[in-house]
């Protein structure tokens, strides 16, 4: 195999590496591009040719509200994730490496546990008769259980927990690349810690925040399990609505159209963010 590969490089004029992309390209083509095209096709042909599925989705208050909900939830989750992840990432960046690797291990470990198991664990913690409410009521802090589940609070807590590693990992990389001397220099020049954070650390870490934030936002948009189990029906997200259209209504045309709209919006956001981050990077570099 390796001999063959070497010969290939030696004899062909194709830039090396392109041939190596072939398996990935075939995989993406077969299992992503083709199904997406089939989805698009179904959305304009099922049950009859035309754009009536898109008209039904965009003309109906319910569907529009579910689209809106989806973006609100994804946005709230992204903001909270950034707020929680930043201090953790900063600690990891300035910690002695031995200690940091242990903490990293703990963070990564959570990703290895089954998603459903973790979500059910949150149900046990958050429900009215759950651990948190029982403890608070036992301590006399509250006398009615707090509504922590089947609403936006439950979805946010559950999803932030799952998204944290995706935010922390890119952020640590960015923060580690920042020269600590810049902060010391700011202090020497008389900047308060807050000013140093706001004017030095935050701008320099923006690429990391943007990269992690985009990943979290895009992943949140399509999330199914956590909102279905920890959310209520009144803040239903798009993935759950699509599942209803496919499984219960058997209206595949409508479901395909909804999925395709989500895909287009997500890719547009991705393109936009890429452009913004790209220019930020350039200005930081200059």
């Amino acid at each position, binding site marked *: 195999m390796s001999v063959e590969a070497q010969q290939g490089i030696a004899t062909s004029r194709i830039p090396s590496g392109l041939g190596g992309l072939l398996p990935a390209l075939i995989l993406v083509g077969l299992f992503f591009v083709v199904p997406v095209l089939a989805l698009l096709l179904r959305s304009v042909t099922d049950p009859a040719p035309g754009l009536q599925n898109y008209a039904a989705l965009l003309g109906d208050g*319910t569907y529009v509200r579910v689209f809106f*909900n989806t973006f609100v939830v994804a946005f709230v989750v992204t903001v909270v994730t950034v707020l929680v992840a930043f201090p953790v990432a900063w600690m990891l960046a300035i910690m002695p490496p031995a200690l940091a690797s242990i903490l990293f291990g703990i963070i990564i470990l959570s990703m290895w546990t089954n998603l459903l198991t973790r979500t059910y664990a949150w149900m046990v913690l958050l429900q009215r*008769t759950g651990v948190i409410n029982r403890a608070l009521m036992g301590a006399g802090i509250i006398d009615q259980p707090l509504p922590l589940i089947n609403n936006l609070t439950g979805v946010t807590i559950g999803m932030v927990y799952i998204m944290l590693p995706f935010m922390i990992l890119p952020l640590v990389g960015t923060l580690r690349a920042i020269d600590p001397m810049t902060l010391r220099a700011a202090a020497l020049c008389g900047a308060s810690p807050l000013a140093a954070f706001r004017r030095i650390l935050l701008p320099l870490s923006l690429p990391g925040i943007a990269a992690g934030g985009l990943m979290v936002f895009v992943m949140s948009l399509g999330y199914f399990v956590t909102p279905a189990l920890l959310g209520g*029906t*009144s803040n239903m997200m798009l993935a759950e609505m699509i599942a209803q259209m496919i*499984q*219960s209504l058997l209206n*595949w045309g409508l479901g395909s159209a909804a999925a395709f709209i989500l895909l287009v919006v997500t890719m547009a956001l991705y393109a936009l963010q890429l452009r913004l981050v790209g220019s930020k990077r350039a200005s930081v570099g200059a």
Partner: protein
Amino acid sequence: MKLIFAGILAGLMATTAAKADEMVFTSWGGTTQEAQTKSWAEPFAASSGIKVLQDGPTDYGKLKAMVDAKNVTWDVVDVEMDFAIKAAKDGLLEPIDFAVVPKADLDPRFSNENAVGSFYYSFVLAWNKGAVTGEPASWADMFDTKKFPGKRTFYKWSAPGVIEIALLADGVPADKLYPLDLDRAFKKLDTIKSDIVWWGGGAESQQLIASGEAAFGQLWNGRVFALEKDGADVGVSWNQNLTAADVLVVPKGAKNKEGAMKFLAAATSPTGQAKFAEASGYAPINTKAKAEMPVDVVKGLPDAHIDGQINLDMNYWAEHRDEIATRWYAWQAK
């Protein structure tokens, strides 16, 4: 490299290829499917030599996908009856071979050309005795948050049941339920919407009531039966119990149709039905089954609570399924 690929492909094809001595039965999981496995699949496999593989949970989207793609891996599926009527109309089901499945003793309410009864059940009002003071006596009590505070749990999906419950609670007489007045039902449901916790599957309904997360709810009688058997402290009211049925169907293009028909014959036989009823608390759809059952089990079945019992109209639902579902999910998402 090519050889390995071809090998994998051949392997995949071998596992999906039809085998005459094997069939797949799909149901809803949990205590119900366990009872079906023990009462039907295991004895059937022993007597016929056909191995019955279990799959689940039932998923109507998947069933349609299999039939559309002409790659049907399920041979017998347990579905709700209103879906079966609709699916037959859409051409998703094989006709039942009544030369193999004896029809004479089957309750005609629950069998037709494309489906035979699986079992029938009632929606009953169940509650956690530790979480409720007093005894709720009717569906109207589930809408009385002053007299009975606490969360109430209802079936999440658009299906016969909740709409009827809301109308009954609002004072509609049982014989005037159909055609369903959806506006009135949703208006009634609006009054308790913030107190509703939805259950999506039987196990979830049991968990909600047993833990007291929901004080009371609309449950399948078999799931309450299982809770009682486990020693959970639950109360149950059969007042205005609502009957509906699950049926067994064979998806169009099933790989082992012959085995499937033989399985249906065994599942709907008096013995199969009696054993299943005993294990699950659901009612048999074979009129001869009761003769084979212990008296105390017969007393616990929906049949023993005919007073005030209401039959949900499966034909009405089959006809209006999409229209009601669209409104149902729109209302839920509000």
